[in-house]
């Protein structure tokens, strides 16, 4: 159990996008936030986009696909497939069965759907919106208190969140124009929708996180609630100790030398990471929270649970 004080604001939102560049641990943080919210009694769902299955892998669960599958008490996961979202969208739009059947059989329709730029992203966000509704459109849809999205990596993430606005501009009229506008209002509704940026304590990831925050705030207009600095090494040794250990490493062989050298490396890495943490704090507006580096062979659900306990 995670009997810790609740995290204000971010988990009180209805929809949270977890963003950041590739390889920073977005999925692990998304799952950790999900575990934390679930432990606080919130009915939570973690969404993967573009048919990814990273979250189900963390739970060592078989692929969930386009289904809301329970992982733990109060915690569900779904992998949003754009084609399935499109299908569901059309089903909700067209009430006449014969028309729907004809549409799904038609190659022209699937071609048009694939060819229209941004439509896949749009229906994906549409599905996220649907999941976040208290009055679900899908029959017997479960009500969630919180929807957490493991968003695409940096370069694509901003574009992803901008899709509704872009689309509203392309399709100037028609039902999809209005719906795209509604999705954009959801994303920019700062009271209910937020983002968390995941960063690493290295020079370029820090630069990119600052740029990402800027783009999210100014170009997308979405709230940035947290920046999580992931993978922070513990400070195990003082400067004086590190110096002594480096000296020891110079005069020894075998395991003693290796152990002393590992300690000196740890000190150097931890110190350079603290410098990056300070830079990050200077360069972003959102509160920066740190997450420890986990000396674990694999990032499984227990690793995510450890992080969940450390979220603040």
């Amino acid at each position, binding site marked *: 159990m995670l009997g810790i004080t609740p995290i204000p604001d971010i988990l009180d939102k209805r929809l949270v996008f977890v963003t950041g*560049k*590739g*390889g920073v641990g977005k999925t692990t943080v998304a799952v950790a936030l999900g575990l934390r919210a679930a432990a606080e009694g919130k009915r939570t769902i973690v969404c993967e986009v573009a048919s*990814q299955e990273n979250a189900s892998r963390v739970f060592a669960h078989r692929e969930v696909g386009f289904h809301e599958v329970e992982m733990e008490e109060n915690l569900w996961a779904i992998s949003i497939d754009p084609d399935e979202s499109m299908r569901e969208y*059309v089903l909700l739009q067209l009430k006449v069965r014969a*028309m729907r059947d*004809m*549409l799904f*059989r*038609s190659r*022209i*329709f699937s*071609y*048009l759907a694939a060819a*229209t*730029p*941004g439509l*896949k992203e749009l229906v994906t966000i549409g599905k996220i919106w649907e999941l976040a509704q208290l009055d679900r459109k899908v029959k017997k849809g479960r009500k969630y208190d919180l929807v957490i999205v493991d968003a695409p*990596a*940096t*370069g694509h993430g901003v*574009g992803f969140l901008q899709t509704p606005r872009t689309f509203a501009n*392309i*399709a*100037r*009229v*028609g*039902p*999809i124009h209005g719906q795209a506008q509604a999705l954009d209002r959801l994303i920019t509704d700062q009271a209910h929708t937020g983002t968390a940026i995941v960063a690493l304590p*290295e*020079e*370029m990831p820090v*630069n*990119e996180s600052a*740029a990402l925050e800027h783009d999210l705030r100014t170009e997308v207009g979405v709230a940035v609630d947290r920046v999580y600095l992931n993978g922070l090494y513990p400070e*195990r*040794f003082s400067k004086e*100790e590190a110096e*002594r*250990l480096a000296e020891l*490493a110079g005069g*020894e062989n*075998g*395991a*003693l030398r*290796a*152990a*002393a*050298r*590992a*300690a000196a*490396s*740890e000190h*150097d*890495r931890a110190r*350079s990471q603290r410098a*990056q943490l300070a830079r990050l704090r200077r360069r972003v507006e959102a509160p920066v929270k740190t997450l420890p580096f986990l*000396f674990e*062979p*694999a990032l499984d659900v227990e690793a995510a649970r450890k992080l969940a306990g450390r979220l603040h």
Partner: protein
Amino acid sequence: MPAVDEILAGKDICICAGSGGVGKTTTSAAIAAGMAARGKRVCVLTIDPAKRLADSLGLRELGNEARKVDPALFERHGVEMKGELWAMMLDAKATFDELVARQAPDEESRDRVLNNRIYQQISSALAGSQEYMAMEKLFELHTEGRFDLLVLDTPPTRNALDFLDAPKRLTQFIEGRSLRVFMKPTGLAAKVAGRGASVALSVFKRIVGFDLIADLAEFFNAFSGMVDGFQARAKRVNSLLADPHTCFLVVCGPQGEPIDEAVYFHRKLVEAKLPFGGVIVNKVHYPAERLRGDGDSADLEAALASRLGDEDLARRVRENFADYQALAERDARNIEHLAAELRTRGVIRVPYLDEDVHDLGGLAEIDRYLFASSEERIEIAAGRA
């Protein structure tokens, strides 16, 4: 374990591929810098929208044109630059515009395409267009023949297939063969194709709006005169990728997931009959950290305590060492698995350096590993060199 310069001997294109967050951009820059230092005229192309390469090379802005990196910058880091290093940040949209201008039969068709809203979307946003334009630029630079070696840093696709399939997907889209006939104003083809198609079209119109359909129709009509040219060019780009003078290097990290991705990517390269050169694993924990002592960890702690005269410090050093050993063992296991899956000796390990790499000094440090003989690499990693 050959070094990068051996792998790249006789090659004029090096494509660095791999999943996001594994240090592909840094590796590409380090390979380019290392080959340039050894006397080649090298250009490195990056497509990453995060402008990482510009940071690495100390360039404020990289345009859609190759710029020479000041050799004095390298000398400041003790690197003698025998050749030349050029760098360029790909602007996918500008490259696409140039391509359209080149393929268009006349100015009017060119402008019709460039001004079309669908074109404006796909040229910057359609999945695959960045990848395709990267290859297009590579092809263009290769044809010009200004450089001895081109190093391409590929975009961070979530899936290796996205990258390899990009040219095909994009040309198929532009062809729009099945679609174009239905969009003709006469609608004659729709009659031939039957009611299903026209209903599908009308329903689609209802959903996305008439404007969008009109734009799509306009787009395909505008592009119709250029389809053959695009196809021919895509074919030439593809044969360049498969050329024996091209070399794919797979870049990955030592954790389980990036290793699995690298195995997958390698398999796709082999299936597509593309020339695989080797794999580079970044941020590997030092082999020296795997060293087991003569006795157990209690002996190590006792030995440390007697040398340091500080039991608490000795305990912390021993605990830290155990954590590092676990990581080093994990890395070694994963890399062994990788080498077995790839049936290759060409696995180059770059250790997890104490300092974060983000400048030319860092690139030079990485080059010590990329360009070292296998004996040198072991010596360096063991902390003896």
